[in-house]
Structures are given as C-alpha cells and as structure tokens.
C-alpha cells in the first residue's frame, strides 16, 4: 500500500458493530479502504460480507461504531440526505435487481433521471454506457428476455452510469458462467481505471486466486485478516 493511498481513505470504519437482536452480524470491524483501491471482501456464508456493504451505502444503520464515507460520517447524515449519499455508490447484486417492467435502457437511465439530468444528456450517457457494456443491441429489451450475464452487464452499466466514486458489488459473478464473470470483471476494471474504488464481496475462489488485490477476510462478523492474496490464503 503506497503512502499516498494510505493518506486518502474513502471508506473508514471504526469499531463497527451490527446486531440483529442478540446476534452480531458484524463485531468490532475497523478498516480503511483507499481512493481508487480494489478490495475483495470474502469469508464463508453468513460471515457478514453483505452487511458490511449495506452499512456503507446506509442500506442498514450501524448498531455501534462509526463509518466515514468520502468524509461524511454516516451517523450524522440526515435521512433526507441519504439519496445524495447513495449517488456516490454504484451497487451490483448477485440477483441483478433490475426493474422487470423497464427495458435495459430505462433501468440504466433511471439513475440519471433520479439525479435530475436533462433528457438529452440522460439518453446520451445511458446509451454510451450500454454500448461499453456490449448491450447496445439489446437496450430495448426487458430483463426477463435477457440471459443472466446480459442482465448483470446491464446492472454494471446502471452502477457506473452516474459516475459514482465507489462501486459495491455483492457476489456479482455468483450466478454467472466463467465467461460472463470475466466480462463483468473486465467492465469493473475498466471503471476502476477511471479513478473509482471497487469493493467486491465474493467467495468465488477462482476470482480470488487470480487477484493481486487486497482481500478482507471476515468470519462470524469479525475481520480475521486482511492483506494480499498470499497472506490471506496462508491464514485460511
């Protein structure tokens, strides 16, 4: 980790706890994620990977501790400002979470409409991103008529179209074949090269085995280890 990135964390967590009743989904999690960093969050099912991501975009609120995102303390962000906070993120899910009654284009354009962009700019940007995702021929199709890989490409297009600073991907390749998974990872790499931070929760061993990026390993809601692949693998 270079001195420069160390000094510029975009996500900071301080002794974060998330409880559901008596159960700790996350316990005493402290970590920094730097600008333009690519981080994998891994661990067994129920380790707290998805919860960790949800806390970052305030899909859930912390039970204890503090989270800073791009300088904002999430506890102090009023409810009315949460939509603005979420526009800093592009979120990708294993089950795509596309609106089934909207076309691929409409799903992507929604992000820009929500942000209040002019219709001409919405059209230009949405079409451009769908083209980058290789979906220009299918932008007027509805999600049910697309394959899983195509739906995830639309979801990636939706995640990056608003130029967010952070991409959160929760098992983005979990339901895809290896070829589709590779396309998704390439799209995300392309977006990282434009300065974004990428945080991916996955237990896809194939992807983890090929990476030379930082891996945060969670177990029972605690950070058991974090570092480069070899270190984490050794501890696993």
């Amino acid at each position, binding site marked *: 980790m270079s001195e420069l990135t160390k000094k510029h964390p975009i996500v900071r967590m301080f002794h974060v706890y998330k409880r559901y009743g008596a159960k700790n989904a996350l316990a005493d999690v402290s970590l920094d994620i730097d600008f333009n960093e690519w981080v994998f969050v891994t661990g067994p099912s129920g380790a707290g990977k998805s919860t960790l991501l949800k806390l970052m*975009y305030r899909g859930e609120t912390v039970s204890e501790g503090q989270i800073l995102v791009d300088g904002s303390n999430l506890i102090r962000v009023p409810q*009315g400002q949460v*939509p603005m906070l*979420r526009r800093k993120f592009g*979120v990708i899910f294993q089950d795509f979470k596309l609106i089934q009654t909207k076309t691929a284009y409409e799903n992507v354009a*929604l*992000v820009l409409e*929500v*942000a209040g962009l002019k219709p001409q700019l919405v059209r230009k940007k949405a079409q451009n991103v769908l083209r980058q995702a290789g979906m220009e021929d299918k932008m007027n199709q509805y999600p049910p008529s697309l394959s899983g890989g195509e739906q995830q490409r639309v979801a990636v297009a939706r995640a990056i179209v608003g130029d967010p600073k952070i991409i959160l991907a929760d098992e983005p390749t979990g339901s895809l074949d290896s070829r589709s998974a590779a396309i998704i990872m390439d799209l995300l790499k392309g977006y990282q090269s434009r300065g974004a931070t990428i945080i991916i929760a996955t237990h896809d061993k194939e992807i983890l085995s090929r990476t030379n990026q930082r891996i945060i390993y969670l177990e029972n809601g605690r950070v058991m280890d974090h570092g480069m692949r070899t270190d984490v693998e050794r501890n696993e």
Partner: protein
Amino acid sequence: MKDMADNLFITLVTIMTIALSILIASAGGLLFVNAGDVMNGWKKGIRIMAYITPETRESDVAGLRETLAKMSGVRDVRFISRQEGLESLKAQMKRQMSLIDNLDINPLPDAFEIFMNPEEQTFEKIETLAARVSALDSVDDVEYGQAWIGRFTQVFNLFKFIGITMGILFFMVTVFIISNTIRLALYSRRDEIQIMRLVGATDGFIQVPSYIAGLIQGAVGGMVGLIALYIGYLAISANIEKNFSSYVIHIRFLPWNVVLGIIVYSVFVGWLGCFLSLRQFLKNN
C-alpha cells in the same frame, strides 16, 4: 402513465373501487336532492292564517294588509273575506252540509293568508312572524299548524343530519378502501421502489408519479361512478314517469355544481388515499 399501464390490473381495481364508492355515495346524494325537493314543495304550502277582529273596519283592512306585507320574511298576503271563507268551508264539508245550512249567521271572521319566502321558512322564523302578527290590535288569532310544522322541521333536520353523517362515513370508508387499494399497488411495486431508493431516488421522486396516478385514478373513478349513476337515473326516472305519471313526481339528476363537486371530491380522495398509503409505505420500506 406508463407505471399505470404496467400495473394495469391494480390500476383498474383502484378505479373500480373509487367508481363504486362514488356511485354509492352519489346515489345517496341523488336521493337526498330529490327528497329535499319534495320537502321544499311541502314547505311552500306553509302559510300563516291571521284572523281579524270583528271590530276592524273595512277601511282599516287595506292598511293592515300593507302592514303585513311589509313584515320581514313575508312573500305574499291574500285577504279572505268571511264570505269567501264560508264558501271554502262549504266546499270542504260537502258531506256535513246540513250543519252549515242550519247556521243563521256566518261565524267565520275575515282573515289574511300570509305566505313566507321559502328561504325564511325555518320553524323559528315562522314562530317569530306569527307572534308579531298576533300582537297587532286588529288580529284576533293566528294559526299556522304549529304542531305539524315543528314535527316536519324535526324530520327535515333529522334527514339532513343522516345525510351529513352518511356523507362523512362514506368519505372515511372511501379513503380507507382507496388507500388500501393503492397500498396493494405499491406492494406490487415494492422491489421497483427499493431499487429506485438504492440508486438515490428521493421520496419526492418516488411519490410524484404515484400522486399523479392517484389524481388520475380519482378523476376517472369519479366520472365512471357518475356515468353509472346517470345511466341508473335515466332507467329509473323513465320507469317512474311511465308508472306514476298521474302523481306529479319529477325526479331530477344531481345539479352541475354537485357533479363537479363529486369529481373534485373523488380526485381529492384519490390523492388522499395515495398520500396516506405512501407515507406509511415509505416509512416501513
């Protein structure tokens, strides 16, 4: 509009719910308007009879007439001479004619028949006018059907109270049904709304299309309900005119201002139902 088309079934259910609620409520209104007409017709028959003292000279009668006509609330005054009164009594008592024929003298006094302005015909105003007429020196006695006017007014007020209570109840029931139907529509869009929030949509961005849909559904539902009521009205009024033509029963449809009021009301109800369900839905989801 696209959202409404995407959720066509729920949209149609909402419109039909509003239409049925409006149909029932406005049918009550139609009944109220026509029953009110009948009651107003009866009220027009209300008059005060002022019987004149025998000492009153013929030359004073014109002055008395003028005094009565100038009194507040009086629409018309008609003089009924004692002779005319007797003729009228004879006409009404044909079967007991022998009783009247045996009279040596005409026992009836001269009288004035006083008609009031329809808008002044409250029980209290009739009583007040009767008291003022009675206080005149030349007036011996007044008669205005004290007992039945009181009862009639009570019935009319009860009728009004029931109408207003029913209106409020229907309003509450309609809002309840519509807000639940709209909530059903929102639940069918729950995933979509959650995705919209995920990509940074404000509650306003989510609410506006639903409000517009609520207003449109309210207006369309109101118009459908009124059209159904009008068709029902045409069928019933044609039937009544055919079978009861000898009784002067004239049924009229709701006046235009009431029709407009019902449409505004249904639009408001559509919006209110939407507002209530959205507020709760966005709080819980």
